[in-house]
């Protein structure tokens, strides 16, 4: 199991578009991928789940991956968060 920490860098937070990007990235990996905010854990392959986190600007998010390609999965998701989803950064 791999756990990485990140924060939301884009001003708008995780709305529909970033959430779709996360899910589409996560779905490419065989590992189970989760996001955790303040103890709430959701499946990172579910768009609606990710939106439900209400991850606004500056929120701390924990990325958890578990499976054969857990390291790559977690890093790919983290890279997305770090890039701010190609949106305006806060």
């Amino acid at each position, binding site marked *: 199991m791999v756990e990485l920490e990140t924060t939301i860098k884009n001003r*708008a*937070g*995780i709305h*529909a578009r970033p959430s779709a990007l996360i*899910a589409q990235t996560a779905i490419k990996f065989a590992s189970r991928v989760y996001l955790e905010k303040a103890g709430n854990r959701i499946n990172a392959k579910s*768009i609606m789940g990710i939106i439900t986190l209400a991850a*606004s*600007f*500056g929120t701390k998010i924990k990325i958890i991956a578990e499976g054969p390609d857990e390291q790559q999965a977690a890093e790919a998701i983290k890279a997305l968060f770090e890039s701010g989803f190609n949106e305006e950064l806060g």
Partner: protein
Amino acid sequence: MRYNDDVKEQEPVNFTVLDLLSLELKEQNDLKLRCVAGRAGLSREITVPDLNRPGLALAGFYESFAWERLQIFGRGENAYIKKIEADGIAPQIYEKLFSYKLPCCIFSNNIEPTPRFAAAADAAGCPVLITELGSVEFTIRVIRILHDIFAPKIIMHGVLVEVFGIGILLIGDSGVGKSETALALIERGHRLVADDVVEIRCLNGTLLMGQGTNKVIGHHMEIRGLGIINVTHLFGVGAIRDKKQIQLVIQLEDWDPNKVYDRIGMDEMTMDILGVQVPKLEIPVKPGRNIPIIIETAAMNERLKKMGYHSAREFNQNILRWLESESARTMYFSRDDY
């Protein structure tokens, strides 16, 4: 997308005066035409969807004479013809007029052309028609009809169905299940417009009208394992429609695990058909996906969009508002000085 294998390019329109006379039109569009002279010229082609009042030509002014259009003779032109015949200058005028290969002369208001005019037209092989309609009404109807006939047209492979009032063109490779999907939709109470070959005409440059290419083939479907079925007989006249505007294109394709399908529906794809951008959805097909229900939902969502409610956008607006308030709250609680 326009010139892919599914699209057959337009053939030039070949429309003669005889075709104009033999159009089968409903009462409100009927041209009420009959031919009284120049039958030999009924094979003359109408090449432009427009008409001309030949008053200036009769008066001897032939500059910019639009001879290739239908020539409409109303009460004024007819009165002038009577005058020139009384004055004895008619023969030269007719000779000049009929030296042009006019597609045909049409007299409105049920006016009978003078015998001398009819004879001159006969000699020149120019058809003379009479309509019961007044000039204005005839002009309105004939322009509308000719524009429909001369409208840009293509033939596409696909199935055109009407689902909740939305005209949906289903396209996709053969064997992907277009006809089966359409059949399921018909079974659920929707309507078939055309199967397999759809003729699409662009009216007004903005509206795409789709219909079957042929009345004989119309409303029959080929279902693998069943053969040809007659939808009208099997499902009743409520299950069919002659033509329908195409408002949505749905491309069915085999599920490709490497392809990214739209998961939100905020970026809208369109397809160019005859220069008109039609909203397009790509729907992956795989066992266990109930495609007819997805298409029904797509049709309802399209209606909702036309009514001004865009589900995906409204949803995201609400999310953004919510995130903004979350963000404000977080900042408030994380202030050091409280």
